């Protein structure tokens, strides 16, 4: 019996270490950003919010945050619409065509982001859209589309076809059925997909790095540039801001749909 308890305790300690390992870098970043000292150190010396003030006072960080938010919001809106349409499209396809269509839609997720970025770098340059906002935005839309699609398509899979038939037999046209029956039913999937799109776009690095528009950094790029020359808590504040966005999204998903249904 003692052996079993020891085994249980051992396993518990091991798991605690693994979970600590998972969360350690995030906790360290957040604590370091709250430091009252002048250098980036852990454990932090004292408490202050001055590094956040410095972050928001830093013009290139502010512009980068603004551009990141803009790209992420546009991606979210565009991708949610396209992915919802694509999911409804797939539902209407025959089995034989639905499989390949699904694979095509998931390809940007299956291929390494950096490779897709390289292809887009070449392609956008050739059609005269190299280093433009449009190119950057397209890159973000392509990468995030599968995330939204996965979540919306799985919500759609749960919808009983009988509901569609009932709506049709009661005289509703296709559009009315789609907007009054289907959309409300798959709303949780659309919300989850949209929020994921936002956060994936907000954090995207490789794609933004290669398709960087002239004079426009996104927040991860600005942080990367900053880290090359400076190593102070302003960087930690920048990182904490993006962690806060991620937490905000998780909280929203939990509140609106519930985390368990989301994954």
């Amino acid at each position: 019996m003692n052996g079993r308890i020891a085994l249980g305790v051992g396993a518990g300690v091991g798991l605690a270490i693994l979970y600590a390992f998972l969360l350690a870098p995030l906790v360290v970043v957040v604590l370091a950003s709250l430091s009252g000292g002048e250098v980036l150190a852990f454990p932090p010396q004292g408490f202050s919010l001055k590094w956040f003030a410095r972050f928001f006072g830093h013009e290139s960080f502010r512009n980068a945050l603004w551009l990141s938010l803009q790209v992420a919001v546009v991606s979210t809106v565009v991708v949610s619409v396209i992915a919802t349409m694509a999911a409804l499209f797939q539902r209407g396809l025959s089995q034989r065509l639905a499989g390949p269509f699904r694979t095509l839609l998931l390809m940007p997720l299956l291929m390494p982001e950096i490779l897709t970025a390289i292809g887009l770098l070449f392609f956008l340059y050739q059609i005269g859209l190299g280093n433009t906002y449009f190119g950057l935005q397209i890159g973000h839309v392509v990468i995030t589309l599968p995330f939204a699609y996965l979540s919306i398509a799985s919500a759609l899979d749960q919808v009983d076809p009988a509901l569609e038939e009932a709506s049709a037999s009661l005289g509703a046209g296709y559009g009315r059925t789609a907007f009054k029956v289907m959309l409300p039913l798959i709303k949780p999937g659309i919300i989850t997909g949209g929020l994921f799109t936002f956060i994936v776009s907000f954090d995207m690095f490789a794609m933004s790095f290669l398709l960087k528009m002239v004079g426009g950094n996104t927040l991860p790029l600005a942080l990367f540039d900053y880290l090359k020359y400076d190593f102070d808590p302003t960087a930690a504040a920048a990182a904490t801001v993006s962690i806060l966005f991620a937490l905000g999204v998780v909280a929203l998903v939990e509140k609106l749909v519930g985390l368990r249904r989301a994954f």
Partner: protein
Amino acid sequence: MTPSPARRWRLAILGAPALFLLVVFFVLPYGEIVMMSFRTASSSAPYGDGLTLANYARMFADGHYLGILGETVLVGTSITAICLLISFPIALHLSSVGDRWHTLFYACVVSPLLVGVLVRNFGWMIILSFNGPINQILLALGLIERPVRLLFTVEVVVLALVHVFIPFMVLPITTALRNIPPSLYEASRSLGAGRFSTFWRVTLPLSFPGVQSGVILVFVLAISAYVTPVLLGGQFVVLMPTVIVQQLIAAFAWPFGAVLAMILTLSTLSCVLVFAFATRGLVRRAAIGRQP
């Protein structure tokens, strides 16, 4: 039942935006990588007008790039192996934990995924820096006399990438474990098997489909990781993605960069295919075992 023309039109309109987007901004760009690898170099533009095989010849003639490719595959393999070792216990725990705590532990695993790779790497930079906690602990224990340089080594790059990819390994394995019917555990126990023997002969073999997808996913991601080796490896860790980006951004030698990208992709693909082929028996066995 043949669909009416109106219905067909409706479907086409629904599918058109996604198809257009992916064909134009995904399929064509990939084609362009292939094309670019055959273009001539140019000193005034990223690439010239003609077509040539010289870029491939240059790559194979120069052992330097093949060496970096080998190193990249090696690092990718170690990351995948370590990731699997760490992720399996987490997946085992996650698949067995009760409903009440499930959300909390799930959030622990998934939340790093929602924070950018850059931020997670930055956390390791702080932890491993000269005046970071690891150096302080080692100093306090008297193991070292002055802070040592921990950053900018291949080991740190491996550590940080393992950390980044754990969720990608945990999630498919958890799904596979959750799909094992509880009746199999009961059967195993009632046939007199102990916990370890049940683990070896039921849990492990039946989780293999999840392990296989996790391994493939992490390997592909590890081979193509760019930001972590640059940030945590500095100039001391040179892997393929770094070299490719250097060719594209700094040297402006797009055709040669495209050749390196092609070689990296083809090598990754062959590794994945060999792995999938070698383990197909294990996946089939799991599928048979799962049948009622």
